[in-house]
């Protein structure tokens, strides 16, 4: 863990080193954040509430991908395939067996674990670009299976799912979804942070750094890689299952390669190697299309480009991603750190060398 970002705090126990909230300022800020998030559904408009729900839903998948690609260093271009697997598990079980959510959610998680194992097997032999390509191929296969189900069962436009109900309480209201998704998102982030503080997270960081050295230190590289894939894929399929219930609708076209690229953008734009980066990247990617729409409206282009608005989206998204890759490799988290450092180190510009 890093040094406390304020003076007067000294660590006297090992637990302090690993604590998530170490200064009084941080505890206070976190309490304010929790309060704001709890109050939000009562003051926000329906549109903002839907945006917030989308952010939380995407954040689960983004944190999962950050664990896999940002921390463990295993490049995965198959993310949309895993979301599709979770969504189709929910859809198929609902359609064929009328299964309730407390069956489909664990089923989606088990499908995710199995797929994670399969997606992870190439990583034992391949590295870098070949691994990315194998996950890409698996993505196409999974989406194809979903599409086959759709065509064979005659759901040409997609599988419709009713809102889930647990113990008589139906989850159809946006506020109820907000509470559920917020809780899931917080649980996911907490889970990820704890995993990273523990032995598994350290093993992942080690294999990301240098595999041979990790092996020499006694870390089981194969186990670490497979764990990374299994954990990440399970989280992603659960997110896919929730996505299916939230939208009420599952269709294979919603899980294109562009969705994978959007998730990878949350990792890249957010900043590789930080959970905060995953969250910032999520906010960016979810709000980006609406920002483009607002910009188009401000420029008065809405009617002319209405039918090809998605093309404007594509082009703008490509440009922004290229700009981040070329000029801001550390992403939004890196920008945040620079801002923090500017305040912390003022009037100095950078840390003195040789500290």
């Amino acid at each position, binding site marked *: 863990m890093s040094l406390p970002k304020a003076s007067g705090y000294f660590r006297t126990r090992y637990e302090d080193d690993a604590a998530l909230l170490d200064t009084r300022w941080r505890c206070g800020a976190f309490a304010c954040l929790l309060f704001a998030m709890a109050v939000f559904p009562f003051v926000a408009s329906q549109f903002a509430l839907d945006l917030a729900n989308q952010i939380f839903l995407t954040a689960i998948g983004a944190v999962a991908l950050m664990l896999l690609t940002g921390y463990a260093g295993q490049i995965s271009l198959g993310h949309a395939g895993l979301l599709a697997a979770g969504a189709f598990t929910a859809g198929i079980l609902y359609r064929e067996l009328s299964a309730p959510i407390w069956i489909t959610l664990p089923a989606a998680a088990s499908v995710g674990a199995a797929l994670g194992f399969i997606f992870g097997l190439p990583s034992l032999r*391949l590295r870098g670009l070949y691994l990315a390509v194998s996950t890409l*191929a698996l993505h196409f296969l999974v989406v194809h299976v979903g599409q086959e189900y759709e065509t064979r069962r005659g759901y040409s436009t997609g599988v419709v799912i009713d809102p889930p109900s647990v113990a008589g309480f139906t989850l159809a209201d946006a506020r109820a979804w907000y509470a559920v998704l917020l809780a899931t998102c917080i649980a996911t982030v907490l889970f990820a942070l704890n995993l990273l503080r523990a032995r598994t997270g350290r093993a992942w960081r080690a294999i990301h750094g240098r595999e041979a050295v990790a092996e020499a230190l006694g870390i089981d590289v194969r186990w670490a890689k497979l764990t990374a894939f299994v954990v990440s894929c399970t989280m992603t399929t659960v997110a896919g299952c929730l996505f299916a219930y939230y939208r009420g609708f599952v269709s294979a076209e919603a899980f294109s390669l562009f969705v994978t690229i959007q998730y990878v953008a949350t990792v890249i734009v957010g900043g590789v190697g930080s959970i905060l980066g995953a969250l910032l990247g999520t906010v960016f990617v979810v709000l980006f299309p609406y920002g483009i729409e607002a910009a188009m409206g401000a420029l008065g282009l809405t009617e002319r480009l209405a039918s090809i608005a998605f093309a404007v989206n594509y082009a703008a998204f490509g440009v922004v991603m*290229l700009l981040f890759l070329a000029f801001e490799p550390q992403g939004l988290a890196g920008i945040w750190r620079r801002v923090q450092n500017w305040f912390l180190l003022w009037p100095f510009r950078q840390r003195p060398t040789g500290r």
Partner: protein
Amino acid sequence: MPPDPDPVQLAVNVLVLASLYALISCGYVLIYRVSRVLSLAHGELMMLGAYGLAVCASLFSGHPLLALAMSLVLALTSGLAVYGALMWRMTGESVLAAVLATIALGILLRGAMILAFGTQTLYPLSALGWTNPSIPLGDSARISAASLALVASTAVVYGALFVGLRRTRWGVRMRAAGQNPLLAAQRGIRLHAVYALAWALATFTGGVAGMLIACDAGIEATMAIIGLKAFPAALVGGLDSLAGALVGAAIVAIAEVLMIHFVDPLLSDVVPFFVLLAALALRPWGLFGTREELDRV
């Protein structure tokens, strides 16, 4: 079950599809061999070449040969432009960053092309004033003129590349930069120039493939998928081997055509990826590729 396909026609289909995949794969192989970057924007660059032909055909209507020549020049220069505007920044960056840059470029190009040309299908062949007759081969098979041109172009391109990479000075420079960039740079080879040339040639061959597809079937927004389907052909043969690309294209084309005829036509989009996974499981570096990428720590 569809009616029993004529074996000669099947062979012709395989030949045409293999030529297409081979022509597209040589773009992947050229860029990877010279600069170790996997360009996943190749499908979109192919489409750019096809749209270039449509634009030149309407600009130079009445002079089809001039339009064709201008579109070839355009394809070459757009490759140079892609390198000069973007990819030179990515030299030396991590694998993931370079691949993501090409993916982002592909997304940008796709959006820009839809914005510029709309979503309806274009037919540059009619704009050029030429037709695409169906030529009979023997007594049972037929091949369209555009497909025949495709097979011929692939042969010419590969022949030129094989000779060029071995005999010409720039070809030797490209091979040297691919083998050991640091040593090549220290020997005075301008790496940026070599990489730019590789991108120009790759975009040129991809553009030619795109133009020929457009002549056969028109330009649709979904043409970029063909580029992605040709990638397994490059990988199966070995990402840094041109001969491998030919063999890989043949394998993928045979698998796809046989699957379409004997199993299920809807599988055509997934068969290349099955082949890809099989290749990655059995021999990740491809049939003719160099092995060092995977075992290096």
